């Protein structure tokens, strides 16, 4: 049964909206890409120091956070399918799960950084400057900047998802106009994508 779909806003263009989001994602990829190049060069120049400093990081918590982010990426991807199937309840539930997983990721990060602070390791700390080699200082500097910038993206991603969730609930984001939700999903997958590379580079040095 065919019925005419009404377009309350003639300017709505799903393809352009997606393209705009991707252009923004490109700038994000190159921002982190630059940091990855800095990491690669310093690791190339200080292989032993990076190995030594890498042992300070907790692989288990890193792996746990990897899985949390991967699952959250799946739940938000599923929510974009759910909204197209006009299943509003499931869309909302999946987005709520995504937000909870993001929160758990941040809580883990809080404890992980907390342990580093307890060991006297933070950018510019006395322990770092007095007792560690140049390479180790570089490693921890990059660790705090890159995981910190990533955590900031998690926080921003959560805000965007909460925004999308509210628009799904009040019906302005729906099966005919899913762009906001899809773009929120793309942003969240970007955050996941960056973590996929951060994890082996920082936590898997042995």
């Amino acid at each position: 049964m065919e019925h005419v779909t009404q377009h309350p806003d003639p300017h709505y263009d799903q393809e352009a909206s997606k393209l705009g989001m991707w252009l923004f994602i490109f700038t994000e990829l190159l921002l982190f890409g630059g940091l990855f190049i800095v990491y690669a060069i310093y690791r190339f120049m200080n292989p032993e120091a990076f190995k030594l400093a890498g042992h300070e990081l907790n692989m288990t918590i890193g792996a746990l956070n990897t899985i949390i982010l991967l699952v959250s990426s799946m739940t938000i991807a599923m929510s974009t399918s759910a909204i197209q199937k006009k299943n509003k309840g499931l869309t909302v539930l999946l987005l709520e799960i995504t937000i909870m997983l993001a929160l758990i990721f941040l809580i883990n990060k809080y404890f992980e950084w907390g342990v580093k602070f307890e060991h006297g390791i933070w950018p510019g700390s006395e322990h770092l400057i007095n007792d560690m080699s140049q390479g180790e200082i570089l490693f921890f500097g990059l660790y705090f900047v890159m995981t910190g910038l990533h955590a900031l993206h998690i926080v921003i991603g959560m805000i965007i998802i909460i925004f999308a969730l509210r628009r799904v609930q009040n019906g302005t984001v729906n099966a005919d106009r899913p762009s906001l939700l899809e773009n929120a999903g793309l942003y969240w997958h970007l955050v996941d994508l960056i973590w996929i590379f951060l994890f082996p580079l920082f936590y898997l040095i042995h």
Partner: protein
Amino acid sequence: MEKEKHHIVPYKAYFYILAALIVLTFLSIGIIKINLGAYSVLGAMIFATVKSALVLTWFMHLKFDKPFLRIMVGAVFVLFFVVTFITFLDYYYR
């Protein structure tokens, strides 16, 4: 205006992708544990690249997007590798 066909990915497909991503995560931990020396970094990065390809094609829907978008995403990664390569040439030969 006719509505463009929009591919709806079944939930099951996303679940399988997640399972593959988790398996690859454990494989990348495994390859570090068995200690292949310099090759373990290479191995872990190959697993990360495969994982990112899965996220890009399935979770980010590139598989179902128009070719120009796939070409643009590919071009950004090519640009990144070219810049990385040139930077390393600079450091290696200085």
